[in-house]
């Protein structure tokens, strides 16, 4: 791996930048691997990286149906935070946030993690009580969280309409100063480059078409590039988890929905933090390029469609114009949707399955991006030891049988 540094940049610059090599190899699939990960998105590539780095498992392939980072890692709104209500979620997301804080150095790849602060605003007295409760829970878990008054919110984001006579009056908010955004594609590319350097094969254009088992144990995967034997298989396929699981005869408590986002034309810097409102289903931040990135709630019907319903856009833009009258004449540049796999309790599944050697990391719903490093870290541990790490033990598939659900609808379902 070519080390990215200022001296290297100058040295190669003086030679006309002609000797940079690709960040990762185009690997051909081998007939057999110790671990095969399905899905070269953020979580899959992070899993491969930590398997090789921390557990010494380097005979690993990451199979990708399309191209690397072409799924939800490239479609999310890039928000990172850890202010979840319940202990199990708080622990894994905070662990992840700590990994984010050192990720660019760890990977020698600039993921542009920007801790610009994350502001949740509340519009009703009940919502403020819920926010106060969450701030208390966060602080007890060692997560930075502050409860703000309307005046403090207004000082932080002066362009927010905090007049009492609006449709969505701002009664206050919560602030996680360590929250922010990261460059989502760079996360996939950085993990891919670092995993590749440790010997992981990343195989693109390789669709899994079947999962073979013998005596209750996974033996190999049928793919469009031939059969690949595997000691263990990790399915990390956001937006297709039910489809892949059904190949192994497993039913999941997941329903897939489109989640839409929009980007505006670039503006001069106008506000710092990420602003989210769960009550009106909108979250917004300004990128380094100056564009506003807006996210919405999910489309209600189950669907794998990647356009999304126009009504959602109408709803989001109406809310944004109410909250930020200054943006009422900003033009939208593009809109897209990603397929999100939502669990009934809005928490992920990072777990073994009834089939030995087959593991799943799925069901992240609308908020998987922020968990990318932590999710990969615990899933690598799960694959290497064939049992969960204490951080992901609560996120088992059998919680839907035992009833030990982790109901994060208040913190996760609407907003990222």
């Amino acid at each position, binding site marked *: 791996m070519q080390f990215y540094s200022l001296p290297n940049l100058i040295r190669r610059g003086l030679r006309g930048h002609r000797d940079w090599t690709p960040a990762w190899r185009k690997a051909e699939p081998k007939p057999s691997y110790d671990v095969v990960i399905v899905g070269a998105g953020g979580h899959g590539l992070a899993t491969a990286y930590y398997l090789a780095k921390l557990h010494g498992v380097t005979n690993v392939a990451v199979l990708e149906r399309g191209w690397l980072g072409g799924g939800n890692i490239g479609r999310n709104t890039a928000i990172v935070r850890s202010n979840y209500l319940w202990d199990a979620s708080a622990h894994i997301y905070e662990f992840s946030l700590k990994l984010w804080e050192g990720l660019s150095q760890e990977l020698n790849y600039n993921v542009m993690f920007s801790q610009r602060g994350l502001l949740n605003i509340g519009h009703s007295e009940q919502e403020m009580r819920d926010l106060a409760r969450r701030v208390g829970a966060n602080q007890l878990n060692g997560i930075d969280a502050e409860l703000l008054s309307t005046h403090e919110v207004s000082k932080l984001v002066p362009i927010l309409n905090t007049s009492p006579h609006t449709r969505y009056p701002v009664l206050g908010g919560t602030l996680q100063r360590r929250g922010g955004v990261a460059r989502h594609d760079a996360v996939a590319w950085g993990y891919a480059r670092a995993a590749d350097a440790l010997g992981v094969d990343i195989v693109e254009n390789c669709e899994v078409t079947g999962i073979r088992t013998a005596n209750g144990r996974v033996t190999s995967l049928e793919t469009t590039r031939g059969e690949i034997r595997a000691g263990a298989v990790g399915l990390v396929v956001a937006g*297709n988890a*039910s*489809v892949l699981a059904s190949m192994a005869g497993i*039913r999941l408590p997941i*329903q897939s929905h489109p989640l839409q986002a929009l980007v505006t034309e670039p503006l001069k810097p106008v506000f710092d933090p990420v602003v989210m409102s769960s009550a009106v289903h909108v979250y917004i931040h300004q990128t380094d390029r100056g564009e506003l990135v807006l996210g919405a709630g999910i489309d209600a*019907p189950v669907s794998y469609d990647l356009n999304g319903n126009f009504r959602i856009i109408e709803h989001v833009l109406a809310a944004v114009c109410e909250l930020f009258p200054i943006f009422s004449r900003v033009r939208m540049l593009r809109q897209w949707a990603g397929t999100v796999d939502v669990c009934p309790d809005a928490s992920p599944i990072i777990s073994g399955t009834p089939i030995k050697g087959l593991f799943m990391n799925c069901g992240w719903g609308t908020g998987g991006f922020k968990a990318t490093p932590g999710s990969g870290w615990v899933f690598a541990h799960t694959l290497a030891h064939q049992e969960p790490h204490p951080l992901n033990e609560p996120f088992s598939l059998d919680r839907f*049988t035992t*009833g030990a659900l982790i109901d994060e609808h208040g913190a996760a379902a609407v907003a990222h």
Partner: protein
Amino acid sequence: MLLIPCPWCGPREDDEFTFGGEADIPRPADPDALTDEQWADYLFMRDNRRGRHREQWCHTAGCRRWFIVERDTVTNEILGASTYGNSS
């Protein structure tokens, strides 16, 4: 935007309807006899199909009746609608 063919009112915009999830999940006939696994399957597990999908809709802002729609979950094409007990 979807144009949902209500069997009673005709095609209307999806704005008037509430989505009710996968169809053909009958309430257990003898709830006391169910194991935890069977309860989990009834309550939470879904086929979540890519392609043809039978699902429930309610015409909330119209006749307020439930019915079944068959739709392709990739293209969103509506393939038919039926009332309970009668297929289209």
